[in-house]
């Protein structure tokens, strides 16, 4: 089976990036838009072709899906043993991610043709989008953990560039810096984790790390540090990187602010692709986590569960529609992380792993749809805030229907895609840990509530008087919405248990009605509550928020996590660490250097009169010195 064409999947976006970045200014904006979109269109087709070829033509070898190295070349050769390679690895999850990333990216490229039309920096936008697509695709096909790290950082920088796209807006600049610094801080953990892991296993390769041969772990297995084995530490640190990118608690603070970027960017990066990189990382390293660091996996499950509950509660109180969606993303990624944390490895035990990947897949479609729909609404209303909206269903029929589909999907209404994936996650949680199951069950209800709060506030509710009558978005924006709506209805019918499993071997999965029915019911309860409170303009929400008082205020301010961060960084770190360090630098380090300079300068000033430029004087000094030396040698040195 020849997969060498997969290199094009990486080359086309980087070529589009270079073209738009270097030459985009020379042409009309639409040229760079079309170059980016057509390039991504080809990548989209190639990715689907790869998936078809991998799953249905190549198929299983000895009953499991193989890991195929489609291409590999030495990038940095340090010593005979230590070589860093760049390459393309195809296995079920990377192929699935190729499909997800290229599809969502393609839809966003098309959509942006309409959404960003007439914006200053159109070609810059498209070049950044291409750069992002390149980095994300490179990340998912990485053959070794080091290549993944390189692309991981590339993804970080393109996210930074896109969040700060409106670089004249101070809030956008602040948000982009925040996103970059928070994720970069987490990546420090990732790097240390990589170094620890590769130091003890002597390899970077995923194939070796996740293979059946566990002998590479023997050298480090006995060593421990502060009561935990070396591999537990390595895995926790690697997960720290993943938590940074996936915005898990306590690194979640950057994601809501990242909504300052253009809405298509939020759809692409902060909903469907980049933020699931952390999930992908854990899934990629899953055998290492499962066999070498089960404790780390337990931590991961709790982090995921906590974040999903925490974010869902905050989402109920926010008014900025993009922020509601951002917190909803946090909550859904929490689901995926939790599912990985509670997963087993073999056969039906690995249902959590499968469910996590499944939810990642379906989430990409409905969350991108929600964001793009929100973009269409913002485009029409010119506001992000819920209070400025209401009654939009009359003006924007297509956006309304697709948004409703997405809301129904995320609420877990039967026979839409998230129903299947969420059910699998709940099954996995139920068999592993009842507490986490209860949390997730509750979150399912809250999710339905806040999504329909959003839906009713935008499309129903009060009849807002608009300055300009809102109009439906142009076709180039509604067509991606419709395609994604079809995706979010039918993505659930992909037989994931047959294709993507922890050990690469398919298993039988079926809907567990004992869990599915209650979860649908709580979803319906959430929807019903939202309908009661927000369908018509009522005073119920107001009264509830007053009744809850302080708690409501805390939640509305996102539990003051940002303020805690600011307190720690500004008050404690700045005052007690940075200031003494700055003092030491300014007075001791600089003082030494300045002192040396001062001594040289002053002594030079004192003796510069000797350089009179007067030749006879030089001759005199020379002659006298010669005499003195002669005397010294004649009388003192014998």
């Amino acid at each position, binding site marked *: 089976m020849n997969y060498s064409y997969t290199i094009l999947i990486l080359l086309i976006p980087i070529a589009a990036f270079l073209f738009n970045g270097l030459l985009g200014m020379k042409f009309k904006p639409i040229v760079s838009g079309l170059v980016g979109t057509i390039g991504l269109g080809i990548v989209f087709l190639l990715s689907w072709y790869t998936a078809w070829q991998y799953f249905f033509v190549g198929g299983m070898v000895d009953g499991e899906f193989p890991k195929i190295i489609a291409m590999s070349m030495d990038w940095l050769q340090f010593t005979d043993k230590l070589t860093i390679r760049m390459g393309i690895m195809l296995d079920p999850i990377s192929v699935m991610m190729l499909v997800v990333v290229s599809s969502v990216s393609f839809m966003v490229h098309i959509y942006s043709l309409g959404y960003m039309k007439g914006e200053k920096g159109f070609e810059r936008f498209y070049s950044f989008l291409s750069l992002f697509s390149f980095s994300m695709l490179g990340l998912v096909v990485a053959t070794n953990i080091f290549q993944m790290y390189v692309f991981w950082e590339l993804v970080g920088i393109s996210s930074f560039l896109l969040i700060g796209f409106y670089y004249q807006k101070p809030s956008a600049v602040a948000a982009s810096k925040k996103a970059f610094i928070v994720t970069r801080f987490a990546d420090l953990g990732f790097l240390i984790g990589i170094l620890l892991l590769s130091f003890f296993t002597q390899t970077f390769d995923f194939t070796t790390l996740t293979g059946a041969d566990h002998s590479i772990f023997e050298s480090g297995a006995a060593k421990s540090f502060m009561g935990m084995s070396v591999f537990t530490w390595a895995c926790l640190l690697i997960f720290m990187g993943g938590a940074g990118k996936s915005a898990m608690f306590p690194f979640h603070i950057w994601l809501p602010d990242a909504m300052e970027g253009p809405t298509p960017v939020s759809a692409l990066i902060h909903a469907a692709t980049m933020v699931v990189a952390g999930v992908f990382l854990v899934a990629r390293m899953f055998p290492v986590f499962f066999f070498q660091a089960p404790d780390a996996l337990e931590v991961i499950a709790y982090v995921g569960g906590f974040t999903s509950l925490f974010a869902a509660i905050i989402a109920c109180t926010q008014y900025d529609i993009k922020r509601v969606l951002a917190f909803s993303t946090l909550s859904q990624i929490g689901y995926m992380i939790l599912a990985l944390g509670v997963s087993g490895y073999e056969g039906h035990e690995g249902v959590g792993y499968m469910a996590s990947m499944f939810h990642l897949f379906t989430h990409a479609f409905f969350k991108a749809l929600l964001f793009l729909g929100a973009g269409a609404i913002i485009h029409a209303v010119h506001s992000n805030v819920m209070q400025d909206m209401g009654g939009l269903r009359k003006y924007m029929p297509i956006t309304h229907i697709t948004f409703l589909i997405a809301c129904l999907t995320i609420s877990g209404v039967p026979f839409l895609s998230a129903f299947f994936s969420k059910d699998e996650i709940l099954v996995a949680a139920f068999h592993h840990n009842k507490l986490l199951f209860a949390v997730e069950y509750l979150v399912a209800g809250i999710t339905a509530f806040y999504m329909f709060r959003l839906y009713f506030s935008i499309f129903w509710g009060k009849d807002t008087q608009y300055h300009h009558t809102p109009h439906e978005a142009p076709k180039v924006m509604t067509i991606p919405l419709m395609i994604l709506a079809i995706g979010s209805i039918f993505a659930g019918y992909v037989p994931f248990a047959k294709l993507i499993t922890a050990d690469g071997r398919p298993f039988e999965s079926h809907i567990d009605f004992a869990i599915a029915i209650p979860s649908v019911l709580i979803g319906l309860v959430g929807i019903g509550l939202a309908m009661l409170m927000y369908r018509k303009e009522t005073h119920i929400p107001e009264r509830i928020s007053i009744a809850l008082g302080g708690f409501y205020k805390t939640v509305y301010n996102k539990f003051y996590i940002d303020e805690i961060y600011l307190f720690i960084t500004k008050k404690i770190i700045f005052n007690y660490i940075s200031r003494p360090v700055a003092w030491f630098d300014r007075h001791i380090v600089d003082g030494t250097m300045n002192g040396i300079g001062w001594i040289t300068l002053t002594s030079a000033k004192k003796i*510069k*009169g000797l*350089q*009179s*430029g*007067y*030749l*006879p004087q030089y*001759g*005199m000094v020379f*002659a006298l010195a010669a005499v003195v030396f002669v005397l010294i040698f004649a009388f003192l040195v014998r």
Partner: protein
Amino acid sequence: MIEGIPMTHVLIVSAFMFFAGICGFIIRRNMITILMSIELILNAVNINLVVFNKYLYPDQLQGQFFALFVVGIAAAEASVAIALIINIYRRLNSINVEQVNEMKY
């Protein structure tokens, strides 16, 4: 070489020449004169070389050959120095060494 003249006599002549050169180098203001003083110093050294060779190692020739080299070098040095002096004269309209002090701090 005249028989009977002691070595010290010749050395006294060379020392006199040497210090005359040093004094000229320091005292005189005219660059050409300074150059001539340098030639005096060099020739004083040449006399020493030849004298020591002749009186101490009469069967060898190194000292005399060395004196020949010094003469060659002195010729080259004189030509370079005169070229410099001509340039300085064109620039400053003077060869007074006191006026050539642009290289001070």
